[in-house]
């Protein structure tokens, strides 16, 4: 197997230097974090390395930085002072690592000419154990440190621990690479060294490192201010939540019909969802709220809520001043009247000979009149409500400050309330149809001399009396002739109900989109894509000798689709279960009630 050495492209030394870094897992891979120039005191180096060792390293993998080896820049081989009598070969004995690298580099060249790996055997001697090829990967340290590795399904410690606990499944090398870099942040903190050798010798204390933060620690003012502001904001948020929480976890909501009503109202579900979100965001860090909340996810949630509120405010600012609300209030009764009028026309059409179909006129008339009476009732109910509509809409619209999704869920509820009559008609027609279908199937079994055994859930044979057979025949004939009429009414109302459900599904999907869109991650991906790493690409540079392959490692950003899939914000309340088409048709044909499938929870009867 080839050995791999990951070398930061910013640290190519002009003079010979010692390589600091760590070994990646059990493989033959070395990660160079920084280079240290001569001269130095071994003890000082050891204490420095101990001080920058990562504190929260996972037990399954050792990412402690150590002295990996030495990089000789040829034509500039410096033999150290005789006083210190440090030679390259004794260095390895001093630092006593498991392996020792010796890299040869021509002055001015970017690719090393040779790389030897020495392994320590049981006696403590270092023997040359170079594999046939060494892959020398140049990586951009600035990018590699600031990036988030997202190629596997999860990149936090807990799941990687599970992965390596199972010895057959090791985390991939790239995962180890990025984890090692993030563990060893400390090594990049100390101040850069002076080039002046005498000054250093006089101070005699510091180690001179070269890495990506040579020029001093970098950071962004915004990020630092944000981090500083986090704590007070969190406190304020937690206090606000404590105020609002009793509203949601009150015992009152468990009393009998209220949970059922709560499940039906999309507004209530959306409020619940937003409360959950806020709880997740503002809860103190010690509380482990699953899934484990990382800062970017937090940012996603906050950004999505802010976007929601922003859209809501925009909408309010557009609607309220321009008098659209009054127009809506006036239009509402007119609209309901129009809908009722259309329904009446539909019923009159059904009572005649719709589409030339031969319906039983008596039954059709009866059903039609029954439904017309209901429309009349409903119109009177609406006319009672008209004066209250204005204020309700005005105050309800203000809720849009909490988010446009809340407005949309209110719209869903208003639609449900406005189409109560369609729902009622559908239920009546479905029940009647189902009664007829059940009756027909039962009587059909009667003719064949069979009966449904309720106890054993199977069809049994049965001896019927003569009068039962007579009556059965008569009833069967009647039900059969009346079936087309009932079926037509049922079909029409089912279609209306499906149309209403369809509209509500559209609104619900929009809410789901608004709730779930990971705005922050998406923007991050679109603006500075390299921050989210989806993979690495190796490009071959040169092959200076047969034993060394020089490659350059480029970090590939995660694709937009993968970002969406990965960071989509989950929601427990708005569950989408798309219905199976065959099942839907079977449910309709058998007369069972179609449940609105955009609702989670128990749904409506």
């Amino acid at each position: 197997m080839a050995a791999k050495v990951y070398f930061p492209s910013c640290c190519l030394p002009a003079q010979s230097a010692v390589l600091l870094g760590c070994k990646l897992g059990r493989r033959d891979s070395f990660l160079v974090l920084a280079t240290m120039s001569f001269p130095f005191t071994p003890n000082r180096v050891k204490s420095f390395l101990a001080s920058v060792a990562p504190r929260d390293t996972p037990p399954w993998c050792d990412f402690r930085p150590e002295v990996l080896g030495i990089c000789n820049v040829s034509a500039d081989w410096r033999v150290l002072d005789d006083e210190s009598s440090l030679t390259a070969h004794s260095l390895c004995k001093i630092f006593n690592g498991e392996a020792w690298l010796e890299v040869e580099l021509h002055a001015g060249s970017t690719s090393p000419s040779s790389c030897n790996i020495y392994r320590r055997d049981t006696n403590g001697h270092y023997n040359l154990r170079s594999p046939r090829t060494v892959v020398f990967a140049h990586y951009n340290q600035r990018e590699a440190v600031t990036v988030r590795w997202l190629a596997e399904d999860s990149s936090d410690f807990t799941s990687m621990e599970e992965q390596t606990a199972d010895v057959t499944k090791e985390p991939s090398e790239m995962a180890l690479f990025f984890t090692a870099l993030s563990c060893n942040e400390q090594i990049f903190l100390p101040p850069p060294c002076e080039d002046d050798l005498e000054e250093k010798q006089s101070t005699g204390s510091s180690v001179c490192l070269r890495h990506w933060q040579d020029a001093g620690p970098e950071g962004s003012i915004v990020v630092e201010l944000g981090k500083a502001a986090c704590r007070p904001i969190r406190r304020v948020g937690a206090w606000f939540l404590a105020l609002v929480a009793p509203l949601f976890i009150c015992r009152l909501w468990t009393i009998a019909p209220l949970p059922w009503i709560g499940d039906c109202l999309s507004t209530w579900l959306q409020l619940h969802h937003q409360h959950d979100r806020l709880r997740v965001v503002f809860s103190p860090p010690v509380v482990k709220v699953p899934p484990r909340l990382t800062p970017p996810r937090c940012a996603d949630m906050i950004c999505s809520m802010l976007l929601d509120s922003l859209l809501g405010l925009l909408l309010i600012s557009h609607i309220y001043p321009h008098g659209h609300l009054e127009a809506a209030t006036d239009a509402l009764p007119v609209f309901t009247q129009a809908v009722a009028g259309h329904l009446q026309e539909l019923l009159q059409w059904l009572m005649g000979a719709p589409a030339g179909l031969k319906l039983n006129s008596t039954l059709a008339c009866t059903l039609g009149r029954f439904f017309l009476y209901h429309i009349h009732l409903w119109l009177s109910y609406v006319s009672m409500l008209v004066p209250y509509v204005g204020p309700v809409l005005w105050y309800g619209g203000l809720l849009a400050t909490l988010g446009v999704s809340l407005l949309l869920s209110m719209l869903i509820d208003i639609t449900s309330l406005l189409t109560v009559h369609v729902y009622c008609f559908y239920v009546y027609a479905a029940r009647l149809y189902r009664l007829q279908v059940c009756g027909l199937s039962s009587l059909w079994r009667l003719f064949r001399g069979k009966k449904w055994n309720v106890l054993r859930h199977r069809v049994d044979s049965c001896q019927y009396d003569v009068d039962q057979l007579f009556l059965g025949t008569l009833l069967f004939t009647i039900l059969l002739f009346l079936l087309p009429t009932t079926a037509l009414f049922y079909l029409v109302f089912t279609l209306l109900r499906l149309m209403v459900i369809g509209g509500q599904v559209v609104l619900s999907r929009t809410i789901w989109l608004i709730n779930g869109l990971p705005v922050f991650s998406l923007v991050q991906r679109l603006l500075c894509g390299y921050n989210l790493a989806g993979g690495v690409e190796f490009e071959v540079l040169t092959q200076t000798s047969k034993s060394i392959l020089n490659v350059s490692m480029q970090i590939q950003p995660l694709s937009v689709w993968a970002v969406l899939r990965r960071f989509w914000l989950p929601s427990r309340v708005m569950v989408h279960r798309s219905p199976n088409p065959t099942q839907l048709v079977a449910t309709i044909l058998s007369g069972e009630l179609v449940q609105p499938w955009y609702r989670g929870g128990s749904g409506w009867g």
Partner: protein
Amino acid sequence: MPHSICMVSDFFHPNAGGVESHVYQLSQCLVERGHRVVVVTHAYGDRAGIRYLTNGLRVYYLPLRPMYNQATAPTLFHSLALLRCVFIREHVTVVHAHSAFSSLAHDALFHAASFGLASIFTDHSLFGFADVSSVLTNALLRASLGGATRAICVSHTGRENTALRAAMPPGRISVIPNAVDATRFTPGPPTGNPDSTCHDRAHLPRSVDRRCAGVTVVIISRLVYRKGVDLLAGVLAQLAATRSDLNFVIGGEGPKRIVLEELREQHCLHDRVTLLGALDHRQVRDVLVGGDIFLNTSLTEAFCMAIVEAASCGLQVVSTHVGGVPEVLPPDLLTLCKPTVRDLCAGVIAAADRLLAGKAPDRATTHARVRDFYDWRDVASRTEKVSNDDSSQNDN
């Protein structure tokens, strides 16, 4: 001279049944004799492609969809490309098709004739001549067997039937019976749970050398009309009323199961009649050794492997006198009855009385006799002789 034999049938593992086990056992014995054998059948669900069974027996599960009753569509040409591929790939010299219900077998016979390969057809069932389905199937058989060079039937009655149906000269039909794997069907205690099929009747003291008091009658068959389930219902009703020491164990599943369940409920026979449902092939032996008498009420049967399996386990056999059943076992091991309720009841009662009087034949002796009668290796050698005759005739 080793042949390269291709067994074709719609019915093979993972289906369980008479034809399936016949094809499998015959293939294994022929492989033992040094021939190359492959099996071609249709895909069962996800199981498509080439699989390997014991001794490297290659099975081709062709991606054809079964239409009705586990058989593929009888369109003749939709399997041509695949069969041709198999024949060429395996350098097949003999095509051996099984079961007249299998349309893949008919296709293979037809195509084998056009490829000039020797073909043998094994017929496992008897057909009538009077009803519409029989008339059509017989016409189909005449067409397929026109190209077949030889045929094998599992009983003499079967040969007469095939000769009439297919208008084939009887000299080209050989009678080679099925066999039974005597090492699997041995008398003795059940290898599974010893109490699972035994009815303990402590309140009926009987002779102590039997496992349980009372006489257990075992019936294992598919519960369809052809297997005489209606007759069985009548027999059960009468026997349960007249003899209180008889218990019944019924294994198998089918559309007529409801008849037996209703009978059980009507006459309150829940403690005396046990319905086991579909049995795995491995469980059959355990159910058989738990009984004393095996009852077969089929209305038509070419060979009836179940009888031989039961006799191999040492049970007394009572059966209807239909089809090829009288040829299967000698009269001292097999009680034949007319297909009426009264006669069958009399037969069962006679067998039970024989058992209670201690005059029933010894189980081990019965098993040894059956083992001598039927052996798969013998079947394989006789089949090989047919193939040899076939290919020598082909060469000529």
